[in-house]
């Protein structure tokens, strides 16, 4: 409950900051030229200027073969529904190996635009599989940083004083109008260890990927790539103890698609 209240306060502060960063100067004019006319809009003018839209995005659906000879699969998908500045976002990111789910992170977020390129995202995250499930409150930003870096930075507060943060940055380098090379960085941090989920405190893992996709259709692009997944510190120790590797270099074959 306290976490939710803190979250709400943070959202408020975030919105305020975004407004304050671009506030109107004293001399700005009024946009109202109505001369006191009422503002109601007539029926029959069916202007969809505040309509809701939806999108299903499979950012990555891939099969990986790593330098230890192991095979695994990976899914990173999202769905949104909403208007220009307010959307419901659902996200799912999962690791699969030997026909079972290794790790699955699901999020349900309210996405609210706070600037031309940035949205605030707030909601809940649930970690399932790969140990006891964990529930988190989530607050972050998603958007386009200068130099066209698609960025997501999210902080999480969980039960028993757990905390976490996740950063994801992608860039699309277009070689032709259809052939796109995408470098991608993902990093995860945890505030305190969670040995049952093989997580240590501090920087726990990074993934550096380089994927070359070809847009057969604008909405349908198979890709081939390399991904380097590395675990650090306590997370690496716990994985070693459990007999897992702490570093993999993978060749990935996958699909990027949306509807």
């Amino acid at each position, binding site marked *: 409950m306290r976490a939710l209240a803190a979250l709400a306060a943070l959202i408020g502060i975030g919105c305020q900051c*975004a*407004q*304050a*960063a*671009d*506030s*109107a*100067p004293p*001399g*700005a*004019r*009024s*946009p*109202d*030229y*109505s*001369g*006191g*006319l*009422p*503002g109601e*809009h*007539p*029926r*029959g*003018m*069916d*202007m*969809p*200027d*505040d309509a809701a*839209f939806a*999108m299903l995005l499979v950012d990555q659906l891939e099969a990986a073969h790593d330098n230890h000879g192991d095979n695994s699969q990976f899914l990173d998908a999202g769905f949104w529904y909403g208007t*220009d*500045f307010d959307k419901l976002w659902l996200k799912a990111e999962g690791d699969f190996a030997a026909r079972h789910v290794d790790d699955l992170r699901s999020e349900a977020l309210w996405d609210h*635009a*706070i*600037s*031309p*390129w940035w*949205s605030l995202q707030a909601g809940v995250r649930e970690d399932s599989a790969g140990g006891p499930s964990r529930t988190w409150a989530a607050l972050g930003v998603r958007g*386009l940083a*200068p*130099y*066209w870096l698609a960025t997501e930075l999210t902080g999480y507060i969980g039960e028993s004083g757990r905390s976490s943060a996740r950063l994801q940055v992608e860039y699309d*380098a*277009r*070689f*032709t*109008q259809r052939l796109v*090379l995408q470098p991608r960085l993902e990093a995860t941090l945890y505030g305190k260890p969670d040995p049952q989920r093989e997580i240590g405190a501090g920087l726990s893992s990074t993934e550096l990927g380089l994927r070359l996709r070809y847009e057969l259709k*604008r909405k349908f692009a198979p890709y081939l790539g390399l991904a380097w997944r590395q675990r650090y510190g306590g997370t690496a120790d716990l994985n070693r103890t459990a007999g897992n590797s702490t570093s993999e270099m993978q060749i990935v074959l996958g699909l990027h698609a*949306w509807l």
Partner: protein
Amino acid sequence: MTIRRPPRALHPANPARRHFVQQLALGGAAFALGSAPRRACAGALEQQAPQPGTLAGTDFDLVIAPTAVNLTGHASIAHTVNGQLPGPTLRWREGSTVTLRVTNRLAVPTSIHWHGIRLPADMDGVPGFSFEGIAPGETFTYRFPVKQSGTYWYHSHSGFQEQNGPYGSLVIEPAVERNVAERDYVVMLSDWTDLDPERVFAILKQHSAYFNMNQPTVGEFLRDSSALGVRGALQARAMWNRMRMNPRDLVDVTGFTYTYLMNGLAPAGNWTGLFKPHERVRLRFINGSANSYFDVRIPGLKLSVIAADGQDLHPVEVDEFRIAAAETYDVLVQPHEDRAYTIFAQSMDRSGHARGTLAPRPGMTAAVPAVDAVPTLSMLDMMGAMGGMAHDQPMDGAMDMGGMFHAHHATTEYGNPGVDMRVDMPRTNLDDPGVGLRGNGRRVLSYADLRSVDGPADARAPGRDIELHLTGNMERFTWSFDGQKYSQARPIRFGLDERLRIVLVNDTMMNHPIHLHGVFSELEDEHGVVIARKHTINVQPAQRVSYALTADSPGRWAYHCHLLYHMQAGMFREVVVA
């Protein structure tokens, strides 16, 4: 009803017709015979040719209905007027009163708006403002006096229908014709997609660059790097990258999905207008597209531009002109040689073209030029006057800023995710033909060339200025005036018979053709002198354009960007004259 048969040129001889039919799959319009509603077709419309027929007189029956078409090689359904795409050319006479019965055979409400025509507000055909729209199965009767002459057009003002085909040309014969010509052709340019236009809109909301197949590439960066050095190439891109703007974001919907049509024919269909050498040929260009700009030229011929938006101009001779969505330009040409000439209309982003031919005999063709290089927006288009200075001369503290126009941004443009840029010092000069046409070696028309023969409609000086900013977010695909979408804004009120000035400042990097219903928009030069009457005023990126008007028609009127997808996103206002 009097029926004017289309001029001979619109009836190609049989061999040409056969050849044409063979080309249908290459992009001609193949209408299912018999699908045209004959009863309403005013009789003797030609079934054989998809060119727009012509109806003349004072009494018209128009039927909007779904019609099977094939414009791309794939069967599709258009919403046509009297089974034709474009709909029939309607010829009216200045001083007459016209009656138009419009019947809706679609499953959804429809409407017809008479674009650029001065008429009572309840005849303007905008659902919600003028009337309730025309319900399925119903007929609405428009009746109004015709008080003007020239080239105009009509189109549905309901939903996204305009993309799907219910549009056609209006030719109003003046009491006294100033420009005599032996041949007179409508050349209606439009854009067709087999996609459902609502789907197009949804795609733009999901991924605004979906249709842009001209995006900057790594290869270009490497080429620039070898020419300018890596640092130079980075510097050239720095501003764009920091602002997260794409200098190739010229239009939202492109030849990636569009087939560009001339009088309803794809380039392979080759619409042809006949002439005899030395004849004067009047071409009435109308941009009836939903979301496209065209750059038009006829290699080998000088174009004498004699009218804009239906209003006679002091003729100006050019090689090429850009026509914004909803504008019309009348052009006089006089081919002296006994050969074919290509009418070439490339889309502003060079992703495709419409094409036709002027020829002494049917079936002739001339070389079709390649489209020009893909244009790239400049600092002028991003920063207005400041960008121009950065371009032309080094900035120094001594520069005189006194003559510059300082934009007054609205409070609603700040802290607004729907506003991705603001231009503090827009450029005010009208002599820029626009991105992709600058310095191309041809004489290109610009707004600075326009001089209406009929001067200002009202000698009074404007009593006040209304400043409105064209705003948007290209990435999120949101469009608005002053950062407010239609549904967020209050109407704009003009006093009845008030003389006022509208100052538009384009705070985006796209062109926007702004159309005010009900009254003329009297374009001013940068010193506030009225130079031309228009109904649609194009505002280039980071440009300030002003126009005067006299609010002499009471009622509720639409005021909007005539790019369909911008309008539907909210770049729209209600204007109340009362």
